[in-house]
């Protein structure tokens, strides 16, 4: 099933490893494919993410990162293949899958007219929080994402960095075992980026996290593993150190360019 990978890495190492992964994997994607008319946006993508892993999802714009994440979140119906979150198929058993998932969509969309407070209350109520649990759950994420200063502000009046944090707070609200974050650090300043990485690192041991990013240094900073996709296919699936070894320079952006330009050409 990894035969489409340009670099088999250690995934094909042995059946016993795979079996052990399967027991622990919170995210299981098998042969996920999305075609828009004759254009194939995502082409038989398969991977697993276990608890404790932070998977960096890399690729040029239009490579199929967001589409893959949307299929994993159950927002886009795949043409072929399956995705499971904590064992629940995102299509067949979508509510159970979504309960285990915290999802930050591309661009961190939120309702601009709502205040931060009203928005998080809405998400918390939909997530099933009520009574005294509701303010506790909200307080936890507000502290985590430092939103207390803008608590009563309409979201449309917030800076890009705050808006993204509101999106993140929404995703973290129910303390989900699986986090899928589409470009969580896009638009943040260097301090905020650092904060975000620290936050992700503290949560990492208890969760399976997938983040998409364009910033390769981020992969080194927080990811335990990276997948590079180009033109809808996985071209590499390895640890950051293994990836760096693919190019004589030992620099991730050289590896990235080498892998994705060859695929796109």
């Amino acid at each position, binding site marked *: 099933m990894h035969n489409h990978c340009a670099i088999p890495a250690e995934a094909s190492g042995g059946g016993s490893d795979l079996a052990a992964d399967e027991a622990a994997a919170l995210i299981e994607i098998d042969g996920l494919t999305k075609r828009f008319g004759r254009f194939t946006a995502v082409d038989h993508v398969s991977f697993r993410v276990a608890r404790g892993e932070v998977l960096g999802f890399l690729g040029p714009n239009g490579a199929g990162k967001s589409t893959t994440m949307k299929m994993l979140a159950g927002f886009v*119906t795949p043409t072929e293949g399956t995705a499971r979150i904590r064992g629940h198929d995102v299509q067949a058993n979508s509510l159970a899958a979504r*309960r285990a998932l915290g999802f930050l969509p591309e661009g961190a969309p939120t309702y601009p007219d709502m205040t931060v407070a009203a928005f998080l209350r809405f998400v918390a*109520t*939909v997530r099933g929080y009520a009574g005294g649990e509701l303010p506790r759950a909200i307080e936890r994420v507000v502290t985590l994402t430092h939103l207390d200063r803008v608590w009563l502000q309409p979201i449309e009046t917030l800076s890009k960095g705050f808006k993204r944090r509101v999106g993140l707070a929404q995703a973290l609200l129910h303390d989900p075992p699986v986090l899928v974050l589409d470009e969580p650090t896009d638009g943040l300043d260097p301090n905020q980026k650092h904060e975000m990485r620290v936050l992700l690192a503290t949560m990492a041991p208890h969760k399976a996290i997938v983040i998409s990013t364009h910033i390769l240094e981020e992969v080194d900073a927080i990811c335990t593993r990276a997948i590079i996709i180009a033109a809808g296919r996985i071209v590499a699936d390895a640890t950051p150190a293994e990836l760096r070894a693919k190019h004589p320079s030992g620099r991730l952006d050289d590896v990235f360019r080498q892998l994705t330009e060859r695929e796109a050409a």
Partner: protein
Amino acid sequence: MRTTLTVARRELAGYFATPVATVFIVIFLVLQGALTFNLGNLFTRNQADLAPFFTFVPWVFLLLVPAITMRLWAEERRLGTIELLLTLPITQTQAVLGKFLAAWAFCAIALLLTFPFVIAVNLLGSPDIGVIAAGYIGALLVAGAFLSVGAALSAATKNQVIAFVLGVAVCFVFAVASNPIVTDFLSHAAPSLAEITRRISVIDRFQDFSRGIIGLRDVIFFATFIGFWLFVNTLVVDARKAA
């Protein structure tokens, strides 16, 4: 149910967080007032009833209801929040129903604010309150019917202007389906179709209500009509996920 109401409450609060609610209600009341008093001659008819008021309600709704529904889904698609909404643990039916209920509650609020008309005719004479109540129920059902059409069309596009124009056009077809111009033409061209169009006319069904008759058939018609379009709405939302 709780989830549906949570969605509805958020949606309804959204109307009042923007000038949408004020503009809609003011225009609705001004149009209704102008039409009832000027074209409907409420005072000079010398009858203490709201017949002129109810004559115009469906036409004012025809114009204004698509203005509410055009943003219902199209706005979520434009903002990208639809991705958030549909990846929360909410079923499609709950989302569709919640949005519809919010819009319907909003129309109910607008209708309630026409109470000065009721007070006016009560001061001038002694109208049949039952007839007026039936008229209001009918008006609410007409609003629901138009809302369900508009919501389904809004789900099909992210362009609000397209959603509005389509909404007015399709609602218009259901409004005038029993108009003699339509049925006369159809009874020559396709007699079987003429019978059907007479039965699906929203305005025709409403006429009984405005005369004070709440017929079971009419109620079932509206329930089926709204149910059908809400079902279409879920299908459209689903189809766009697979597109």
